[in-house]
C-alpha cells in the first residue's frame, strides 16, 4: 500500500541526520520538503521494543507510540497509555439499550396499544425481560465496536507511519517505536541518538 510513497522517499536519497528537517525551521519551505512526523526505530523482537519504549518514556518523551503485529500489554504500559474510557462507553450503551428496550415495550403495551391478553396486566414486565436483555446486549455491543473505532480514529486510510521503510512488516514480525516531532521535548539529534542506542536495527525519519 505504502509502496509508492517508499519509492519516492528512496529517490530523495539517504536521510541526512546532520541537517535534519526540523518542523519549526521549515515552514517557509513546505512546498520543497514535507514536514517531519517523527523518528521511527525498528526492532526485531518484542522485548527490545518494550525496553526501548520504557527508556524513551523515562527519558521524558511523552508523544511516543509503539507498533506491533499483535497486542503487547507491556508496550502500552511502557508508553504510559493505560487508561481507556471504552468500558464507560459500553456501560452507557448497555444502560441506554436496557432502558430503551424496556420502555419501548412499556410504551407500546401499556400506553399506545394496550391489549388484554388472558387478563394479564398491561405492564406484564416479566414477559418484557427477554427483549430488554437482548436490547441491552445489542446496544452495548454496538457501543463497544463503534466506540473502539471512534477512539482509535478509524477508519483512517492515510497515516504518516505508513511511509516508514519496512513498515509493512509491522503486520508480520517487526516492531516499531516512534517519537513524534510534536513532543514538547523533541530535538531531532537527541532523539536519533537515543533510539540508536537502544538496540534498534534501523532508525529513520518519518515524514508527513
Amino acid at each position, binding site marked *: *500500500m505504502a509502496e509508492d510513497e517508499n519509492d519516492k522517499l528512496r529517490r530523495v536519497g539517504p536521510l541526512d541526520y546532520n541537517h535534519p528537517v526540523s518542523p519549526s525551521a521549515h515552514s517557509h519551505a513546505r512546498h520543497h520538503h514535507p514536514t517531519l512526523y517523527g523518528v521511527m526505530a525498528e526492532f526485531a*523482537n*518484542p*522485548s527490545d521494543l*518494550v525496553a526501548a519504549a520504557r527508556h524513551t518514556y523515562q527519558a521524558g518523551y511523552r508523544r511516543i*507510540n*509503539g*507498533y*506491533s*503485529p*499483535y*497486542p*503487547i*500489554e*507491556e*508496550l*502500552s504500559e511502557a*508508553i504510559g*497509555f493505560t487508561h*481507556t474510557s*471504552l*468500558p464507560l462507553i*459500553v456501560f452507557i450503551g448497555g444502560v441506554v439499550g436496557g432502558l430503551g428496550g424496556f420502555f*419501548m415495550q412499556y410504551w*407500546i*403495551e401499556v400506553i399506545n*396499544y394496550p*391489549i388484554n*391478553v388472558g387478563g394479564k396486566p398491561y405492564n*406484564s414486565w416479566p*414477559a*418484557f425481560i*427477554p*427483549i430488554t*436483555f*437482548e*436490547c441491552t*446486549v*445489542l446496544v*452495548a*455491543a*454496538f457501543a*463497544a*465496536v463503534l*466506540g*473502539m*473505532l471512534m*477512539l*482509535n480514529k*478509524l*477508519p*483512517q*486510510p*492515510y497515516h504518516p*507511519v505508513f511511509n516508514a521503510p519496512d513498515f509493512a*512488516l*509491522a*503486520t*508480520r*514480525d517487526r516492531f516499531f517505536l516512534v517519537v513524534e516531532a510534536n513532543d514538547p521535548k523533541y530535538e531531532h539529534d537527541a532523539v536519533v541518538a537515543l533510539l540508536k542506542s537502544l538496540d534498534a536495527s534501523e532508525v529513520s525519519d518519518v515524514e508527513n
Partner: protein
Amino acid sequence: MADEPQKPYTEGPMHTTAPVIDPGLTFASVTDKIGSIVLKRKTPLGWFIGFVISFALFQLMLLTITNLVFVGIGLWGVNIPVAWGMDILNFVWWIGIGHAGTLISAILLLLRQTWRTSINRFAEAMTLFAVAQAGMYPIFHLGRPWLAYWLFPYPNTMGIWPQFRSPLMWDVFAVSTYATVSAMFWFVGLIPDFATLRDRARSKPFQIVYGMLAMGWRGSARHWHRYEMAYLLLAGLATPLVLSVHTIVSFDFAVGIIPGWHATIFPPYFVAGAIYAGFAMVLFLTIPLRKVYGLEGFITMRHMHNMAKVMLATGLIVGYGYMVEAFFGWYSGNKYERYVIWNRMHGPYASYYWTLILCNIITPQFLWIKKVRDNLLVLWLISIVVSIGMWLERFVIVVTSLHRDFLPSSWGMYQPSQWDWTMFIGTIGFFFTLLFLFIRFLPMISIFEMRTILPEAEVEE
C-alpha cells in the same frame, strides 16, 4: 531473547498431552502460512469440487423458495395439527450448531483457554453461516415472507404494534441480536488480519479490498489497548447472549402448554444440546480441513481431544435432559404428559426416538476411551452421528408433541414433503457455499491471535 535458546512453550499441568501450537512456528511462518492460503497458494482441486457441489445444492434452496413464495407453505408437509414440522426443527438445529462458535470465541476466551485461538475464527464463521440458514426458516414459514418486517416494532399506518408477551417476538429480537453481535465480533477479530493481508497482497484489487476492510489498521499500541478492551467486552456480552438465545428458542416450546413442551428443563437442556451439536459440527468441519490445508501445526491433537471432551460432557447433560423429561412425564401425574412420553417410546415415531437415543446417548460414550479420541476417522464419524442425533431430537420434540394433543379427534400424522427435503438440503448447500468462500478469501485462523501464543511473543524484562 534472540540469542537465547527458546524455551518450549508451557502452559500448566494440562499441557502434558499435546501442544496447543507447533513449537517450531515463528511470527513470520505463522503469518505466511495462514496468509498464503488466501493470497498465494494454488486453490486445491477439492475446493472447486466442494464449492461446485455446494453451489448446486444452494440452487435447490433458491428453487424451493421461489416455488414456496408462488404456491404457499402448503408445499411443505406441515398442516394442522403438526404446523411446525421441519421448518422449526431445522431452525432450531441450525441455530444450535451456531452456538459452539460463540462458545469457543467468547466463553473460552473469558476462561483463558488458549487452545481456542486456532479454531475461533473458523467457528465464528460457522456460527454466522448457520444463523443465516436458521433465520430463513421462520421467515419463510410465515407464509407471507414479504411482510416479515411487520415483526419489528416500527410506527406504521395500520396503527398496530407487535405483541411483546409472545415468545415468537422474543425470538425475533434474540436471533437478530445474535446475528448482529456475532457478525460484529467476527469483523472486529478480522481487522488486524485484514491489515496483514493488505500488506502481504501482491495484486491491486486484493490490496484495495483488504485495505478498505482493514480501515487503516497499523498496529499502534494505543489501538491495540482499546482493541483488546473492546474484544474482551464483546466476549463478556456474547457469553450471556448465547445462553439467552437458545433459552429463548426453548421458550418457543416451553411457554406453550402442549404436553412434552411445557417443561422447565427446556432452557438448560436446549443450551447443552446446542453446544453438543455445535462442537460436533466444528469437529466434522475441522478434521478434513486441517488435513487438506496442512494445518496440523495450528489445530493439533490437543484441540481434537478437548472438543471431544466438550462433546462428551454436553452429551451427558443432554442425556440427563432426556431422563428428566421422562421423569417429569411420569411424576406430573398428568395423563397427557404421561401419554406423550409413552407415545414417543412406543408410538408411530418410536423408531425416531430410539435412533435418537442411539445417536446422542450411546455413541458419545465411546469418547471416554482415549484411543477413540486419538482416532480422527472415528471422531469424525461420531460427529456425524451426533449431528444426525441432534436433528432427530428436534424432530421428536416438535413432531411427537404436536401430532397427538389433548383430543383424539385432532390427532394426525406428519410426513415431510419433497420440498421440505430440498429446502433442508438446499440450506446445507448454502452453508457450505459460504464456508468455501470464507476459506478461500479470509484467513480461517486468526493470525494475530496465533502470534500471541507463540513462544517468542513473550516479553522478557
